[in-house]
């Protein structure tokens, strides 16, 4: 069974190739079928492979499949090969599974779009790139997937390219992530220079044997890899692209935010965790970046008006939790939160898309209201997703994963009180901002007339993802609440588990604090945005509101520091001074041409006079010298 691993990324890739070549000439039902079926079969295969793999544990903790040699130059021999272990298995499962439901949803959501085939071709390529990224056994192949994901995000964010604002958002996403990608490329060069290979397992093996903890090379490589991860995962200071990435169609937002792309950074750090363990300073930086990002994004989400931007900031914030977990060495907790987040965030985006679709593409939550009665199914699933995001105690997946992160941020070896405090405070904010959306959009009186009701391809994914938004948390329950460690014991075959002091009462108290804060957040949201709704609209005149609305002014800052000087230099150098040297040569010869061609009068007598003068001059020179 395991040897069918290569088919998992190959199927969406084949789907892309077929749709790219024939997408314009075949009927929509065929396009939808091919796009959804390729990802669906991949998901089924991933599940089958996962079951087989679980049967082999713990004797065989990893499986490797090398398809062929990619390049062979002077000892540099990266292969097209896949590496399967607990980490990549979870990623592969979540990517294919969530992507399948998003594809199914898109078949209905995009039905009126003229570029139906192009959309699904990009989507399939996106999934294929992400699968290559998570399954790659060497960093070069990983980088191929990494860049593939970046290119697809550019194509999909700018999918409706007739509006130039969408094109700008796509460029912003591409350029900002490019900053991180450059750092990552340098990290790969450094790794190759030091280890002579890009094979991930070989590097980790050699690193743990030969590199001192805290040595320069470990710090440099991990810091640069962190740069790449920060760019792709939209963390501080490269988080500004993600809210603008909402310009794409809603299923794209779901795919970028839940299953693919933004989690690539989390995966990269988890994949190279051995290196990070050797660089404690960078680990602390990862945790710090995560903590700051999750707080900044959490506060920014409080005042957004666009439903998708709320969710975008919430994604940045939740990925911040994952970084926080990675930074304190809670690798398993980060992956656990990745999984639950993939389910509930995909659900939230798809449900938001259903609302937007039903209300003539209205994004402003203050023009929505009372949607609950017309779209009951969307309401209930969105509520489940919100509860999971807010960490509603005991019944939601988000509660268990966030609780695990918060607990380990406090108790693990690298854990610190302020990391925990920020995490808990933002958990409170999370409950407020997401239930603000729930109360404003689904309660109150109707403001925009509901036009279209979602049909089955859109509702089935909602129900399935809502189911997993609840159930996926039950695989890992803290010992204080019964204790079940399916996920962490499975993960421990690939990632070391964090050293946690065992104290059930303390853990219970911490869970209680987090739960109470989440409930308090929901209550506050109810108070402010349901009962006193008329005052709920953010006042754009207030300075603090404006500051938060703009995401703490990072766009403003970067505009001043990078964009404007660049534009200024470009404007000053509009004539391209370097180029004017070459332009000058051309102008000179053109001028000489004009001068000389004016002597060509066509009059024989002038030519004769010229010859005569020339002869006289020559003779004179000969005589004088």
């Amino acid at each position, binding site marked *: 069974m395991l040897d069918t691993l290569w088919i998992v990324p190959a199927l969406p890739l084949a789907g892309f190739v077929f749709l790219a070549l024939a997408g314009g000439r075949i009927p929509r039902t065929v396009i939808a079928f091919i796009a959804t079926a390729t990802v669906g079969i991949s998901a089924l295969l991933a599940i089958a492979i996962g079951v087989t793999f679980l049967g082999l544990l713990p004797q065989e903790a990893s499986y490797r499949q090398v398809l062929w040699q990619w390049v062979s130059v002077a000892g540099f021999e990266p292969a097209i090969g896949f590496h399967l272990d607990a980490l990549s298995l979870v990623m592969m499962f979540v990517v294919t599974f969530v992507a399948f439901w998003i594809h199914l949803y898109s078949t209905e959501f995009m039905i009126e779009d003229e570029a139906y085939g192009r959309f699904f071709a990009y989507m399939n390529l996106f999934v294929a790139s992400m699968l290559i990224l998570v399954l790659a056994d060497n960093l070069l192949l990983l980088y191929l997937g990494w860049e593939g994901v970046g290119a697809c995000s550019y194509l999909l964010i700018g999918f409706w390219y007739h509006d130039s604002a969408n094109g700008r958002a796509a460029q912003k996403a591409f350029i900002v992530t490019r900053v991180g990608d450059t750092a990552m490329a340098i990290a790969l060069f450094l790794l190759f220079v030091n280890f002579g290979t890009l094979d991930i397992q070989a590097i980790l093996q050699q690193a743990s044997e030969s590199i001192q903890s805290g040595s320069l090379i470990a710090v440099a490589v991990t810091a640069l890899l962190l740069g790449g991860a920060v760019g792709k995962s939209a963390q501080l200071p490269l988080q500004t692209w993600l809210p603008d990435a909402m310009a794409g169609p809603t299923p794209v937002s779901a795919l970028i935010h839940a299953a693919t792309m933004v989690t690539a950074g989390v995966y990269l750090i988890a994949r190279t965790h051995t290196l990070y363990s050797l660089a404690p300073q960078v680990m602390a930086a990862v945790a710090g970046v995560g903590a700051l990002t999750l707080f900044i994004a959490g506060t920014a989400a409080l005042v957004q008006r666009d439903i998708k931007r709320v969710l975008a900031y919430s994604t940045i914030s939740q990925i911040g939790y994952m970084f926080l977990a990675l930074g304190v060495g809670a690798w398993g907790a980060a992956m656990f939160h990745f999984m639950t987040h993939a389910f509930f965030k995909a659900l939230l985006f798809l449900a938001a898309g259903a609302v937007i679709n039903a209300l003539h593409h209205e994004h402003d939550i203050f023009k929505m209201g009372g949607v609950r009665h017309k779209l009951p199914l969307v309401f209930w699933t969105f509520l489940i997703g919100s509860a999971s995001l807010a960490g509603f105690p005991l019944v939601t997946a988000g509660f268990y994963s966030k609780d695990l992160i918060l607990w380990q941020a406090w108790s693990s070896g690298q854990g610190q009180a302020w990391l925990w405090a920020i995490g808990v405070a933002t958990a409170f904010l999370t409950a407020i901002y997401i239930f603000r959306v729930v109360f404003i959009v689904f309660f109150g009186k109707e403001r925009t007339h509901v036009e279209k009701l979602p049909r089955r391809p859109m509702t089935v994914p909602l129900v399935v993802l809502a189911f997993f938004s609840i159930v996926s948390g039950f695989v890992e329950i803290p010992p204080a609440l019964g204790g079940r460690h399916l996920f962490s014991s499975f993960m421990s075959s690939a990632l070391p588990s964090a050293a946690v002091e065992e104290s059930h009462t303390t853990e219970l108290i911490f869970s209680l604090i987090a739960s109470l804060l989440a409930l308090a957040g929901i209550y506050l949201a109810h108070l402010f945005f349901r009962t006193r709704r008329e005052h709920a609209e953010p006042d754009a005149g207030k300075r603090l509101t404006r500051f938060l609305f703009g995401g703490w002014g990072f766009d403003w800052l970067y505009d001043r520091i990078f964009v404007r000087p660049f534009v200024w230099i470009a404007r000053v150098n509009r004539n391209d001074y370097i180029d004017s040297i070459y332009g000058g040569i051309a102008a000179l010869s053109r001028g000489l041409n004009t001068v*000389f*061609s*004016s*002597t*060509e*009068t*066509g*009059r*024989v*007598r002038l030519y*004769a*006079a010229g010859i*005569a003068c020339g002869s006289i001059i020559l003779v004179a020179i000969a005589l004088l010298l």
Partner: protein
Amino acid sequence: MTDQIPAEYALVLAAILFALGLAGVLVRRNILFILISLEIMLNAAGLALIAAGARWGEPDGQIMFLLVLATAGAEVSVGLALVLQLYKQFRTLDIDAASRMKG
């Protein structure tokens, strides 16, 4: 041979003739007169050759003049043919009318 005309006189005469011919070429617009002026220039050169040959007592100058005469004959025949063509084309003998090849 002491009462010979000095070579300088012949050369000066040749130079004057040459200058007259050149002036004719540059000044006249009628192509026939240009050809005549060209002949004057050729003969001026021939005179210089012969004067030099006589000065040194060598036959080379006269041989050269024979060559110049032959060349002049060929030149005149080609030149007159061109004049005929020119006249056919432009219905005039004005050389400045044939200035279509200006840059």
